[in-house]
């Protein structure tokens, strides 16, 4: 599903963020990316659908080598839920925002609308379909953002800090919804409990390298991350 070899990255105004990273993830697997702030987790995740372009190294996602020409194809297969749901939801209504990705894929508007309404129903958001996404609660915003991405039927789902701003009930609800999705998941999180609920394997980042990987409970225990 994901194969990364010797990935390096540095922002123009700072030192190296990723220093020769190797990573693999099998199809159907759910993996947690753990590690301190600034250890490179999000930078790494942003590479997987080409938002950050590979400076050195090789990335293969869903069997496609990431290159400028393959970006569109990769983005169709990789769903990305960003840390700030507010940045993701940008259209005037929840329904329109959910339809955005489908319409970009060329799905006819009427079909996109009915698919979007159906997923909003399963996300318990049907009653908010015509509301402005900015007026939803944090949990609802997160679910709306997730709905817009799941609708595109990605093969791989990447979530960046999905539990930010959520209350314990919202976190549980999100975990249940994610576990219902039978696709590969890569979850960047500081929330060890959430990682335990949603993933089987964890990778621990430190200063732009992978320090350790293994079953999620073992890694959490080893780094005292709970």
């Amino acid at each position: 599903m994901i194969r990364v070899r010797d990935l390096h990255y540095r922002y123009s105004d700072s030192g190296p963020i990723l220093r020769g990273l190797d990573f693999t993830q099998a199809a159907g697997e759910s993996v947690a990316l753990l590690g301190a702030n600034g250890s490179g987790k999000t930078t790494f995740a942003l590479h997987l659908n080409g938002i950050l372009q590979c400076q050195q190294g090789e990335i293969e996602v869903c069997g496609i080598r990431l290159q400028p020409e393959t970006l569109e194809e990769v983005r169709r297969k990789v769903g990305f839920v960003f840390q700030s749901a507010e940045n993701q939801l940008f259209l005037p209504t929840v329904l329109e925002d959910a339809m955005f990705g489908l319409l970009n894929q060329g799905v006819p508007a009427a079909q996109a609308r009915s698919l979007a309404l159906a997923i909003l129903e399963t996300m318990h958001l049907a009653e908010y379909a015509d509301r402005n996404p900015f007026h939803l609660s944090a949990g609802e915003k997160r679910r709306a953002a997730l709905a817009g991405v799941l609708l595109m039927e990605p093969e791989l789902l990447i979530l960046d800090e999905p539990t930010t701003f959520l209350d314990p009930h919202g976190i549980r609800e999100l975990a249940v919804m994610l576990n219902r999705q039978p696709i590969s998941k890569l979850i960047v999180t500081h929330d060890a409990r959430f990682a335990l609920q949603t993933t089987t394997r964890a990778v621990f980042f430190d200063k732009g390298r992978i320090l350790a990987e293994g079953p999620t409970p073992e890694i959490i225990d080893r780094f005292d991350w709970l």
Partner: protein
Amino acid sequence: MKLDSRCSLILLLAYLVALSSIHPGHNLRLALLCVLPLMLLLFSPVAKGEVLAQAAYVLPFSFAIAAVALIRGNTAQAVFFLLRSYISILAVLIVTRLLSTLELLRAMEALGAPRFLIVVTEFLIRYLEVLRREADLMRLAALCRGAAHSKLIASASLGMLFVRSLERSTAIHNSMLARGFNGRLPRMSPLAWRLSDTGALMLGLAVIAGMRWSL
């Protein structure tokens, strides 16, 4: 029943053209044309008092011209400019209350405005909201630190406002890219021109032309 946004836009433009083509002194024509937006206002589901008051916003500008005409002793011309500018903005206000800005932009695009211009405008509107939200957050943060009365802090924070807005707009753009955005905003529902729109357009144009040229 709501008209297609293209139909509304064409009628608005036709009305404004008719209004701009009359000259000072054609008082009856002006009075007749004034009836149209007032009737529309009467039957539209908009806050009537609010729209009438908001239309007065334009008066300082037209008042300036009216004042010049008055000083030159031409009262009729002064009244003409005041009334014509007021009634023009009233018509625009009613239409912009009935249709959203995005609907109007789509209508413009459908009527031949360059798509690139329309997409940039849609983004501009979107980022105005981002700018406003960031400004609100920053003002709140400044207030919490006792900056209520410091104009200096407010001014200095404008730079930061831009920086934050730019960061947020980059984040929004990234999330759009992740959902397959390719530089073209997709259309949620296609515009649908019905027979009733053709009827309304014909009738509207006939009424406007009749009021303008019959007398």
